[in-house]
């Protein structure tokens, strides 16, 4: 029993790392994703955004992570800590997917909403910030929650650059104790609880913004 508790505590420390990594990455992914999707509506930038999405979605995440952690410091001569490299890599990767989710959300809005904003003389920045994006956010919330959960699970890749997340710690415990089942089960429970927490928060927000669901 003591072993179980001490393993839970040891893996629990990885939980904080996983949470930091996921939250940091989704913050970067969302901010950049929103920026990219708005930029897509600017004629000059369309190809740039498409190219970015294509490269990010067309290459493995593990490769992107390796480039950011191993290659870029080599090129610019500055070392990055594991958490920062992870947040940048997962955030950039997520931004392409968030931008695509947002694109579908924006395209599903009636064209008249843009036109109504224009006829009322609402400047472009405010139109996006106060009229378009709040409606899009409401429509894409379930898909966005899926993306966050997927990102949470993808963060397990951080172990390849030595990040001490839940997964990495469970492997260390397994190697030390020659016992795989228990540490992996604890890791599974932690990940499942985190995923359920994200889903719960998503549902809460969804219920709060459900005012326009019938319109």
């Amino acid at each position: 029993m003591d072993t179980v508790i001490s393993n839970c505590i040891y893996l629990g420390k990885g939980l904080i790392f996983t949470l930091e990594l996921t939250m940091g990455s989704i913050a970067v992914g969302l901010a950049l994703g929103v920026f990219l999707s708005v930029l897509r509506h600017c004629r000059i930038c369309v190809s740039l955004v498409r190219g970015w999405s294509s490269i990010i979605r067309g290459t493995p995440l593990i490769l992107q992570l390796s480039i950011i952690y191993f290659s870029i410091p080599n090129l610019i001569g500055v070392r990055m800590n594991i958490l920062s490299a992870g947040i940048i890599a997962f955030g950039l990767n997520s931004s392409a997917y968030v931008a695509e989710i947002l694109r579908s959300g924006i395209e599903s809005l009636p064209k008249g909403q843009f036109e109504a904003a224009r006829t009322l003389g609402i400047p472009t920045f405010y139109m996006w910030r106060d009229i378009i994006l709040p409606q899009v956010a409401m429509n894409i919330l379930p898909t966005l929650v899926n993306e966050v959960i997927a990102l949470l699970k993808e963060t397990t890749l951080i172990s390849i650059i030595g990040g001490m997340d839940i997964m990495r710690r469970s492997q260390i415990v397994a190697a030390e104790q020659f016992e795989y089942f228990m540490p992996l089960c604890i890791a599974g429970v932690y990940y499942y609880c985190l995923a359920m927490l994200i889903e719960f928060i998503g549902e809460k927000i969804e219920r709060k913004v459900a005012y326009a669901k019938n319109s």
Partner: protein
Amino acid sequence: MNEKWPMLKIHNASKSFNGVEVLNNVSLEVAKSDVLGLAGPSGSGKSTLLRCIQQLEILDGGSMECDGKIGFMFQDFQLFPHLTVLQNLLYALNLGEKNARRRQSNEMQAKIMLKNLGIEAKASMYPYSLSGGQKQRVALARSLMVDPDVLLCDEPTSGLDVATTMDVVLLLKSACETGVTMIIASHDLDFLTKISNRIVLLRDGKIVLDVDVKQCQDPVNHLKKYYAD
């Protein structure tokens, strides 16, 4: 200003979509405080003409000149669903307005307008909870809030029952009394003759008839003849 001063001048306006000509050299002048009805069958170019006036579409040829601010009332209302009725009315007006007193007076004005339209009780409700007629009123109130000189209405009675249509007639008539110039596109000739003082009939993107409603004995039947030909 002279009452008959042209508020809007359209000269040889033409517009086509994918090679299909929707407006074909349309020329029109609308005097200040005029209520102009745009009649015509579906696809005759009524909505496109309104959209070109509002610059939601760019003309392929010709020119338009408008001597004032334009307001637009959409056929499908296009209220902002995530804002309450009051917020829908106030958002554009309060944008960048830092003066608290002016914001307060805008709110008062919006509430008075809602009261005049009989929907003051709906001020804090979201658009999805309103009926078609109520949405129409909010849409009208929103377009009037920005104090337009010319109000363009695209099919304001489509999808409304007879009683609500009558309400819309009264609403638009009360808006006319404020001196705003109106251009109303509709295929409902009865409605147009009740509200307009002049009706222009469009067919295949061309003006085929221009009727002064008061001078014409039976404008509805007169217009119907041109529909059928």
